[in-house]
């Protein structure tokens, strides 16, 4: 008996986690997928009824706004955070004496809750008392910055706050990447008299391709999950101008009592995540097995 126990101990240790993951991740995804194919409203129903919820979803102007916002927000957030992160990393990589302190300053927003970030930026961007009033107080009477309450511009305030929070993290990733590039090649290029900017564009940045991919994966994952930030900064408003799929799903699930819509919007979110993450994970796991 003890012998059997000793032999199977590794499996016994993994078993609870295995069961938990099967139920609470995969079983739950299956449940949500199933319910998204029914006419569930306030309570879940289990008779499959085709793609009616998805039809409703794509006919809804609110979902249309949320889905468009995801791409506008996601695109701007990812591209600007990557560019900013790369610039910061290159600037910091020039033998800066106070590098440690500067890095700490650039990265600290990542330790904050998105609710805190949203609260801070909501105050700064407050049209009546925040940045706008401050700049007017300096004598620029015509200065206006009311993006927070402008339905067409409010989504960009979410972009600003998200970049503030995450660009330092991208910098940290890129800085690690810059330092992993083979120094011999760089020295050789310098001896050959190749100008600095060419060393970066032709040697260092191409060598960091895997880091760009990692940063892209992490940022897109953050973008799709951005729920807290919108709730704290704009509450999805004005109206539903800054809704994202995540806030749409939450509203349907917990305030509208429309489980069918909540389930189908969650499934769409998962599909967006998977089209980005699955190829990445697949290649990661495969190269590891070699």
């Amino acid at each position, binding site marked *: 008996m003890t012998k059997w126990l000793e032999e199977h101990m590794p499996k016994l240790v993994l078993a609870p986690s295995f069961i938990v993951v099967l139920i609470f991740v995969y079983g739950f995804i299956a449940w949500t997928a199933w319910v998204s194919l029914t006419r569930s409203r306030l309570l879940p129903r289990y008779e499959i009824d085709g793609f009616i919820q998805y039809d409703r979803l794509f006919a809804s102007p609110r979902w249309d706004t949320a889905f468009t916002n995801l791409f506008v927000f996601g695109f701007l957030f990812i591209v600007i955070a990557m560019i900013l992160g790369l610039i910061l990393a290159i600037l910091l990589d020039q033998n800066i004496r106070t590098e440690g302190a500067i890095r700490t300053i650039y990265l600290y927003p990542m330790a904050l809750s998105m609710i805190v970030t949203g609260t801070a930026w909501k105050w700064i961007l407050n049209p009546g008392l925040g940045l706008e009033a401050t700049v007017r107080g300096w004598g620029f009477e015509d200065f206006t910055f009311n993006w927070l309450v402008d339905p067409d511009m409010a989504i960009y305030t979410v972009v600003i706050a998200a970049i503030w929070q995450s660009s330092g993290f991208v910098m940290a990733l890129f800085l690690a990447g810059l330092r992993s590039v083979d120094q011999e090649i760089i020295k050789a290029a310098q001896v050959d008299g190749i100008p600095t900017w060419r060393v970066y564009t032709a040697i260092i940045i191409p060598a960091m391709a895997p880091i760009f991919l990692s940063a892209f994966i992490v940022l897109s994952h953050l973008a799709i999950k951005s729920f807290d930030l919108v709730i704290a900064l704009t509450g999805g408003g004005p109206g539903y101008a800054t809704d994202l799929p995540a806030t749409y799903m939450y509203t349907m699930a917990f305030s509208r009592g429309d489980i069918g819509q909540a389930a189908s919007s969650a499934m769409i979110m*998962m599909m967006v995540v998977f089209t980005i993450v699955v190829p990445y994970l697949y290649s990661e796991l495969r190269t590891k097995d070699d």
Partner: protein
Amino acid sequence: MTDLSYTSPRSGSRTANILLRWALYIMLGLFALFYLMPLFVMVITSFKSLDEIRTGDLISLPREVTFDAWRTAWSGACTGIQCEGVRPFFWNSVLIAIPAVLISTLIGALNGYVVAQWRFKGANLFFALMLFGCFIPFQVVLLPMARMLGLMGMAGTIPGLIFVHVIYGLGFTTLFFRNYYVSIPSELTKAAKVDGAGFFRIFWSIFLPLSLPIIVVTVIWQFTQIWNDFLFGVSFSQAGTQPVTVALNNIVNSTTGVKAYNVDMAAAIIAALPTLFVYVVAGKYFVRGLTAGSVKG
């Protein structure tokens, strides 16, 4: 270090170099201001009176420092009908975070140890399934989880939130320990087995003593994740069991009464202090967790 501006033999004269260095430091300084500005604004606003906020501007220092906003934020601000400040919710977050961090780290360590050192058929599949679970948008499990917590009698309770955080933290904790233990030669385990050491004995006397760095990384990662969580907190809590992030959002977005921006800012700083503190004392491990979560292998 890629010190390109200095070592390149073709770079211009000395004065040009000095100018370039100045430009570099000025740019770095401006970016530092951009990152520090919101924190600075939060801190000075929290020390101003409401009158001064209405008349002054965003970045001017308080003429008269007052701690009233902090007192109100801690023990008097209203979150809906309750007016006890963020204090009870701060302790809720502590009560949720500490057990959830400890349990998920312990299970993650054991899982990682098995996957990395006791390879058996199916262990890799298990790891792939777990890894995949790290990436799902949690929206996809919210509805069934709400029902499951109800069935288990844990809806709206602190143990319920601990449970949820442990389950959805396991993927990352397993990943961290697995990647750490995989670099420890398996000959060590084999030799210990030959000497008659069992599964737990090897874990306890060989692996655990080697694990301090990865334990720190995992604990910090999990603590930051759980403390800063809002989605699970808002979905699975009820009045009285909400974590501090939910309470903060309720204070800031409550529509009744006069908007007290100084109280909002003080409450936000209180909610941010624990993770900021961890970041300041153990920044190195925090960054390592962040990068380990994204650059695997």
